């Protein structure tokens, strides 16, 4: 159980760090001009030229491999809900690193997610 929790912490650090860096990168690029496949492809082409996107990719790769290890150790119905701890860490990252406004209702939602994840882990 301890090794599952340690690997889960490593996974959450990598995936949240990767997602925040990816978000920062694509927000610098701007949004697609139109909601059409060609415009979306052009947008992705611009996004892959962002340094932040490339910073995010190794973190996401590490989070992916740690997820594979977790999946080899524990049931899917434990690992995937437990990974929702990302939301708690991510809400703090969104507020303090991305300067997003996290409203009280969003915080309440994050608290529900946090308690829900705790219950899932306890049963794992």
């Amino acid at each position, binding site marked *: 159980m301890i090794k599952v929790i340690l690997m889960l912490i490593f996974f959450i650090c990598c995936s949240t760090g990767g997602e925040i860096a990816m978000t920062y990168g694509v927000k610098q690029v701007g949004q697609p*001009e139109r909601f059409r496949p060609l415009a979306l492809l052009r947008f992705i082409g611009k996004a892959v030229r962002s340094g932040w996107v490339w910073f995010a990719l190794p973190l996401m790769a590490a989070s992916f491999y740690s997820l594979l290890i977790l999946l080899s150790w524990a049931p899917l119905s434990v690992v995937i809900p437990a990974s929702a701890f990302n939301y708690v860490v991510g809400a703090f990252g969104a507020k303090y690193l991305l300067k997003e406004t996290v409203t009280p*209702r969003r915080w309440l939602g994050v608290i529900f997610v946090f308690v829900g994840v705790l219950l899932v882990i306890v049963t794992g």
Partner: protein
Amino acid sequence: MTHEHRLRFKTLVMVLLMVVCANLGDLMLKRGMLQIGAVNISAPGIWHALLSTIHNGTIWLGIFFLIGFTLCYMTAVSWADYSYVMPAGAFGYALQTTLAVVVLHEAVNGQRWFGVALIVLGVLLVGQTHPNTTQKKQVAP
């Protein structure tokens, strides 16, 4: 359709695509790792697992779906807040648990289902807030 309705609609489409891709991807990864077996945390164990995952078709199918998830995610966060998109995608947790029971025949007790229900409730609360709090004006799609 007002600007906010349009923003909500296209965010919802992307989030639904994210959920489908993520769930199928995770399911395929779990199936692949069941074929490979538990990873041993040692240099040879990790190396062996790495080679096994590279040669496993089910893992590659999972990766294909997760690439789809990443593309949808990148597109969604370009117009909506990270703190909105990320939890909104958590609807998939309920679907994922159902898939784990139906497809992989995992045992899920009442307490774990209650935990998943709380996660979904948290997602609903987040989904009722405005998707973007960092930009006042958006380019109309």
